[in-house]
């Protein structure tokens, strides 16, 4: 267990204030129930998401570095936690670029000075995902002890998406043997949900792409990619796809509806954030975890399984 994860600087990011509101709410509720504290990063800005790098990658590095700089220099934080895969990926990428690329350091320093804040220096803070936060801040043993409403009988396909594990070089702490996350076969979400009593199905598309970058600009491609993921989850026998990224989550939900409306392809599997599922297991109400905000009817599947 890592005691420094008990209280972390929290970077929700733009998506969690909008379409991913349910992920924000359920992350905060689960933290509260587990005694893990969150200090929201003060006056944060967008990390650059998937888009700014296509205009200029170094601007994206600057945007992410400003968030890290505030956490490190204005809040004195040691750990920054981002539940959104996009934010998490970008903060990690900025950390890597600042440690290895002089050109990025120069640009970040130049913009930071003009913007009037301290330049972030690589290594000042550790960036973690919400999965690391719970896995290493509480652990499966303690989580199991706190389960009030076991997810027994619920079959889950764990979907991690692209940005949590790729490319490998920006995640130096992964693939380091026992206890660390794997970039080819990630398992942290599987571990946590198994501790909550769920049955994880053997799901081959854990790190497949949902086409999230082109959710609206190339909808036909995204619908095909999403349909592939939904069908694979159903073939594996899953009732629910557990997600850990607001872009993946809304991509799966939106294109499930689009596949139905445009291609006439109906799928039944429901999407829930892993924090919503953990919250249910901890005895919190679906409403408190904002399950009703999901597009796919999560409440129905929880009722079917006697969990709500």
């Amino acid at each position, binding site marked *: 267990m890592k005691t420094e994860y008990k209280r972390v600087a929290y970077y929700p990011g*733009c*998506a969690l*204030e*909008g*379409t991913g*509101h349910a992920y924000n709410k359920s992350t905060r509720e689960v933290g509260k129930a587990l005694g893990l504290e969150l200090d929201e990063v003060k*006056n944060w*800005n*967008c990390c*650059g*998401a*998937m*888009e*700014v*790098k*296509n*205009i*200029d*990658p*170094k*601007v994206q590095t*600057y*945007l992410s570095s*400003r968030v890290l700089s505030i956490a490190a220099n204005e809040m004195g934080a040691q750990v920054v936690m981002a539940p959104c895969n996009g934010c998490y990926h970008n903060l990690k990428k900025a950390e890597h670029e600042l440690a290895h690329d002089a050109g990025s350091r120069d*640009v970040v320093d*130049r*913009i930071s000075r*003009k*913007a*009037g804040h301290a330049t972030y220096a690589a290594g000042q803070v550790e960036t973690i995902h919400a999965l690391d936060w719970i896995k290493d801040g509480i652990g499966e043993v303690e989580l199991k002890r706190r389960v009030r409403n076991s997810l027994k009988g619920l079959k889950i396909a764990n979907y991690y998406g*692209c*940005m949590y594990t*790729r*490319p*490998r070089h920006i995640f130096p702490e992964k693939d380091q043997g026992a206890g660390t996350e794997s*970039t080819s076969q990630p398992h942290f979400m599987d571990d946590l949900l198994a501790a909550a009593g769920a049955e994880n199905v053997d799901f081959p598309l854990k790190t*497949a*792409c949902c*086409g*999230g*970058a*082109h959710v*609206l*600009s*190339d909808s036909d*491609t*995204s619908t095909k*990619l999403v349909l592939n993921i939904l069908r694979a989850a159903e073939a594996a026998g899953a009732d629910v796809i557990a997600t850990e990224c607001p872009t993946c989550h809304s991509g799966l*939900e*939106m294109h499930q*509806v*689009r596949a*139905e*409306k*445009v291609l006439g392809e109906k799928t039944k599997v429901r999407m829930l954030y892993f924090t919503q599922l953990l919250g249910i297991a901890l005895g919190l109400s679906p409403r408190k975890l904002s399950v*009703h*905000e999901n*597009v796919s*009817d999560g*409440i129905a599947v929880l009722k079917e399984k006697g969990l709500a």
Partner: protein
Amino acid sequence: MPIHEKSLIRPENIRAQDKLIVDGVDVSGHWSTFIEPRVVTDYNERLEEEIAALPGGELIHRCWQCGSCTNSCTVNAINPDFNPRYWIYLIRTGMESELLRDKDIIWQCVSCHKCTYACPRDVVPEGVMKATARWLELQGHTPKSKSAIFDEEFTEQVVQTGMIEDGRVIRGFFAKTGQPLLQNWLVEIAKRVARRLPVMFGLRMGLAALFRPRTRGWTKARDAITEYVEEQEALQRKALGLRNTK
């Protein structure tokens, strides 16, 4: 993993004759097809340099043509014409006219980073795809893709206010690409959500649309980013031998 190869023989150049006898030899049918020869003379010797001058394309020279990128590619799996390995080959050999045959699909890279994960030479093929799409637009070979319009709408909002609001980006994108916002599947999503949502949720979304979320004291950052981006764009246009618009 299957090896995805790209044939350099164009289907339209294959000539099969139902009945043909040449010098007394029967060469009818598919067992003996003819291929119309073609000669490439219009090499663009600066093509690799130009791609390398754009963000993402810097490491293209490292490619060994192993094909790991194409093998792992998400988009290739649904459209075999989407072939990063082949495009890198064309760029490095300067075969611009061949590259232009695929100009309308290169922007479709979904940035899943599988290629970058698989590449043994750290070429960052994902970046090369972005640089190539940008090159096609700057050179006037393609109009701005929907993806580029989305990126610009998004980035503009981040640069202006430090944050984005989903609804505003979506509305701006649909307006700029001339698509109606009321597509049947989007309406269906709104209906499904509305069925379960409390009034407070609608109220909050409405407020977000009225009062843009913004980072306090962002003006100086905005100006510094804008200045840097304009500088970079001028440098890129210069590297491509284009006149500056400003």
